[in-house]
């Protein structure tokens, strides 16, 4: 894929991600107070759900008349930065593994492989739950959990980056470029990382970014279903899982179909951002 074909994806992905960050930044600290004028009622005046998209723009309300866009903004504030940091961490570790393979540093390569074996040995969710259990109350935010997830996801990224570097020729590739008179910085940063490892590194980083968002939704949903506080955010905030949870009531004939649509749209948006970054970094 040439640069002209990749650039639009970079712009789309970058803009949407920036939008997510800005949405998080604009999130209200607390939700609006309940407003029972903004709820759906049956013929007996009983509340049967929230108002839809068109009755209470932009995204309707929940059963208490609280606008759903406030929940969506708060959800964005929970996931935007930790998911990006987790993605960057995986990208950094994958870059390191690729460079080590090219630099032919045998002992460090072995250490990184051993690290991969150890961190990849257990089911990730089990490790995440144990970490969540051990985190002091003040640290029960998404970032530490996202970093643990990134650490656990990094062996696959490192393996793939190292394999890509290996296919490139490893140390022989670097030697060949040295013979052409290129500096070490240009060889490693431009020829190895930018031209050859970039597709793998960015794809893995985007995958982990998306996984962290989904992890947050899953953990918060499980906490909601268990009627317990989430490990990933303060009790004053609401995750996108709250929208999903509201939407589940739709099955019980509540007027909350718009919450399902909104939660699925946000999940699709996350997947689309990740896919845009993947396409933007695809190899020529």
């Amino acid at each position, binding site marked *: 894929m040439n640069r002209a074909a990749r650039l639009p994806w970079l712009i789309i992905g970058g803009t949407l991600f920036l939008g997510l960050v800005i949405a998080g930044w604009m999130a209200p600290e607390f939700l609006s107070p309940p407003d029972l004028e903004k709820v759906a009622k049956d013929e007996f005046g009983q509340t049967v759900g929230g108002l839809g998209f068109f009755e209470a723009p932009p995204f309707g309300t929940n059963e208490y008349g609280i606008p759903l866009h406030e929940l969506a903004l708060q959800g964005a504030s929970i996931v935007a930065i930790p998911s990006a940091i987790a993605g960057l961490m995986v990208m950094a570790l994958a870059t390191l593994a690729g460079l080590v393979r090219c630099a032919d540093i045998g002992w460090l390569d*072995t250490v990184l*492989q*051993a690290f991969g*074996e*150890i961190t*990849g*040995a*257990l*089911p*990730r*969710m*089990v490790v995440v*739950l*144990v970490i*969540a*259990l*051990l985190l*002091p109350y003040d640290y029960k935010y998404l970032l530490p959990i996202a970093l643990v997830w990134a650490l656990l996801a990094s062996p*696959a990224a490192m393996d793939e980056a190292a394999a890509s570097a290996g296919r490139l020729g490893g140390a022989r590739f670097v030697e060949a470029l040295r013979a052409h008179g290129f500096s070490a910085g240009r060889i490693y940063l431009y020829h190895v990382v930018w031209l050859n490892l970039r597709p793998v590194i960015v794809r893995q980083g985007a995958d982990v970014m998306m*996984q962290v968002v*989904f992890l947050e*939704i*899953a953990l918060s*949903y*499980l*906490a909601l*279903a*268990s009627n*317990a506080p989430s490990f990933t955010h303060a009790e004053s905030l609401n995750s996108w*899982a709250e929208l*999903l949870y509201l939407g*589940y009531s739709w*099955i019980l004939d509540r007027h909350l179909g718009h919450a399902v649509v909104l939660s*699925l749209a946000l*999940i699709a948006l996350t*997947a689309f951002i990740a896919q845009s970054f993947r396409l933007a970094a695809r190899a020529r």
Partner: protein
Amino acid sequence: MKWWMRPLVRLIAAILLPLVVPALITGALWALPGDPASIICPPGACDGRDALAARWGLDQGALHFYVEWMKKAVTGDFGRSWTLMAGSPVYDEMVASIPWTAMVVGVALVPLVLGTVLAALGWMPKALDYVWNAIGVAPAVILALLVAAYVTITWGAFGGDTADLTKVLLGGLVLGVADGAFAGAVSGTRSVFEEEVKQRYVQIALLRGETVLANALPNVLPAMIGQMRGRVLHVLSGAVVVEVVCGIPGLGQLLWDGTLKQDFGVVLAATFAFSAFSGALMLTQALSEIAVALYVRRSPKGVLEEAVA
């Protein structure tokens, strides 16, 4: 690196894993601020914390607790629940939950193994990759919610045996396809075989009229087993979410409940079970790598004699 180094490291890691994981949790429990006994008996909420600590073996430090817990754990005694079902044996909960998780994981492996075999045989059309990738984007929690909704609508909130069976079957299927599991099985297997097919020995074998699979399989088997181990771990990870959302009383649900209630007795036992299973997977991979390596490195005497004859 010698060929036996990696399997050896895996063998050692497989044996150490079930020992190290509970040790780390125990160490972390004691490293946390406050007294571990205060989890069972919060200050101000109950009296006799010292007596309780002595009774639960929490009064003589982390090492003593770990050694005593591990000695009992190898005999199947996982101690008692701290808070979730305070005082009741964790073993009973483990025995009740493990079969559920085994069933869910077993069902999840069906699509994964099928995808692997079909991709290895070259029977999985590449055109379908977009379909698998699109399905794989769906997070397990969403698909599990659909399963839970379907079961609730069909059988009501209280369910029954048929509802439970449906939850296990559909929950397992969700694990087999969600989060890119099936797509990964197909594309991972295909990429391994495509790389191997480029090798000269496979091309020569093809010219001799032999099949790709028979020739390439011994060489790709370690990579395939490694991939399958990763997929089983992925399924186990997702099982926690699927079990809780679908209400399947498996090991994942037990671990989740233990985590919520800060029940270290349950969490230690559940993570011990998960790490023992992960260790067993690692052991299988190491042994199969050794077996394949010995098979590939066997003397070609018989082959040569056959060729000469």
